[in-house]
């Protein structure tokens, strides 16, 4: 139903308004992708996963044994391990309503959550629908010396490409730190996010060849994690030399660059993510601290008895 605005005297102007200009050239509000209009390159209109597209890249080239292991053994085990009887959701800290003491509260975006800026997610009970899985692996290689020797950023990208077999993206400095002679826009290294078979291939190389041979490696720290199921750790330049792709061609690598590895999982908490990753062959070490709020997710005994008697 059309409602007349308080501030407008005329209602007909609003009612007859059209979303875009009627006179040619029509400026559409929806973005036009020109390649779809032109008859020039019909093959550009195909989706990248279509075999006729020039962007097509076959990726199902081998069976994926990490995925096989996950679906045959790990997934059902994780469901049993994480399941606890009578689990209840732990509600996250969400954005709050305004108290409407001022007329300006009307239509104002919601208030920040209490004590934080970004709302935190609700932790749901573990069921067969939310069994954690590995979603991807990010390798981030930031080379400090690249501000003096820009070629080292290129060399770092090449190293990542050699290890993973995928094309990395360059990363650039964002901030201006005069003391470090760092300015925004300087190319500082490379990063790459692996999914699917590339990720499986990378983590099997890491857990079976590289990590067992690194000196003084006792496991990923149990303190690592971003609270929401992503675990990160780093490899030094010495450890990077142990990748077979680098080790078998040492003459080409006068210099190696360490990088950070982030393991993205769909787990809701870091503890769940660690259980998944240890099933995939990553060792963990150190004392584990689970926030108290995450432990209070069971129904209390009095509540449970009252619900059963009803």
């Amino acid at each position, binding site marked *: 139903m059309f409602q007349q605005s308080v501030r407008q005297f005329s209602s007909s102007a609003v009612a007859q308004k059209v979303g875009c200009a009627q006179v040619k050239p029509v400026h559409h509000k929806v973005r036009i992708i020109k390649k779809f209009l032109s008859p020039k390159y019909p093959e550009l209109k195909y989706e990248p996963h279509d075999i006729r597209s020039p962007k*097509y890249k076959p*990726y*199902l080239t*081998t*069976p994926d044994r990490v995925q096989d292991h996950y679906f*045959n053994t790990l997934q059902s085990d994780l469901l049993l391990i994480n399941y606890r009887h009578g689990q209840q959701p732990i509600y996250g800290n969400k954005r709050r309503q305004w108290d409407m003491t001022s007329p300006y509260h009307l239509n104002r975006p919601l208030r920040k959550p209490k004590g934080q800026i970004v709302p935190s997610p609700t932790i749901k009970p573990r069921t067969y629908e939310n069994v954690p899985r590995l979603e991807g692996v990010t390798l981030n290689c930031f080379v400090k010396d690249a501000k003096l020797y820009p070629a080292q950023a290129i060399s770092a990208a090449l190293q990542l490409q050699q290890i993973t077999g995928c094309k990395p993206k360059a990363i650039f400095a964002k901030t201006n730190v005069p003391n470090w002679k760092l300015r925004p826009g300087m190319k500082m290294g490379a990063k790459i996010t692996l999914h699917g078979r590339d990720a499986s291939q990378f983590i099997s190389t890491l857990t079976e060849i590289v990590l067992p041979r690194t000196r003084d490696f006792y496991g990923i720290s149990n303190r690592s994690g971003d609270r929401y199921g992503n675990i990160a750790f780093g490899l030094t330049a010495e450890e990077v030399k142990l990748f077979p792709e680098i080790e078998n061609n040492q003459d*080409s690598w006068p210099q190696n660059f360490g990088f950070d590895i982030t393991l993205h999982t769909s787990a809701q908490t870091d503890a769940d993510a660690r259980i998944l990753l240890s099933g995939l062959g990553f060792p963990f070490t150190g004392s584990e601290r689970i926030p108290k709020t995450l432990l209070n997710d069971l129904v209390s005994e009095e509540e*449970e008895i009252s619900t059963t*008697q009803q």
Partner: protein
Amino acid sequence: MMQIRQLTRSFATATTTTTSNIPIKSSLILSRTPIVTQDISEFEKLFYNYQEELERRLMWTFPKWFYFKKGTVAEREFSEAQNYPIPNARGVWFPQGNPDLKHGRDRRFKQEVILPKKHIESDNNNKEEDSDNDFDNVGRPIRANSRITKFDKENDQTSLERKLPRTLYLLVNQNGNWKFPSFNVLSENENSGLHKIAEDGLRIIGGDKINTWSVSNSPAAVIKYDSNNKIIHNTDNNDQLITREFLIKSHIIAGKFDLQKSNNSVSDFKWLVKEEIKDLVDISYYSKIDHLLSDI
């Protein structure tokens, strides 16, 4: 419903004991996870081969100049090992189309990079077997073991080294029935947890030279028996004499199951894959455990 909840709660929290007259059993699904990659069907093999060749056709040309420096012995050996395609020539008719060569690669076809053979592998045939058994020689050739072991050929179902690409499950002949090993929860150890009882029971019937890992203390399933030891399918049965058998999952890590002669209840054991279990056990029992077993 009330009855069941009380039952499970008393085991989880180990506080109240109302279970003394309700018979409970703890059963163990002991599995050996696959050791080698799973077998793939003929169609999958063809599919992967096609995708792999397609990838080789579309990939960037192998950068020989990066891996082999010009003028080195390695570069010469690598170049000699390659099968170079016929170059294009003017005035020559090529019945399958003109070659499109870049960096020694015909871009119309898939790229084949052949690695030069190492000197150790090119030894004479009589020396080959000697170098295989020479364990002090670090440079001895690496040869993969067969995916089919001698226990597969003998069909020795008590061995753990059979059906390497599949998940094996331990089944025992307990009191005349083939089933997962199951143990009574006695009143003296009813507070120790189902997984503990199952693991201890396994050591009694199978010796302590076995290393297992209990997946969780929560049971994966429950099977109910009536007083005649028959499986009950409908859950509304309020019979007081129902026996509940809780299934606990566990994996064997090392060691082996060695049947103890002192135990009278278990007469035989087998390590079986899903299809073999279906043929061996009772139909009503299989219908209860079917969904718990891995297809691979």
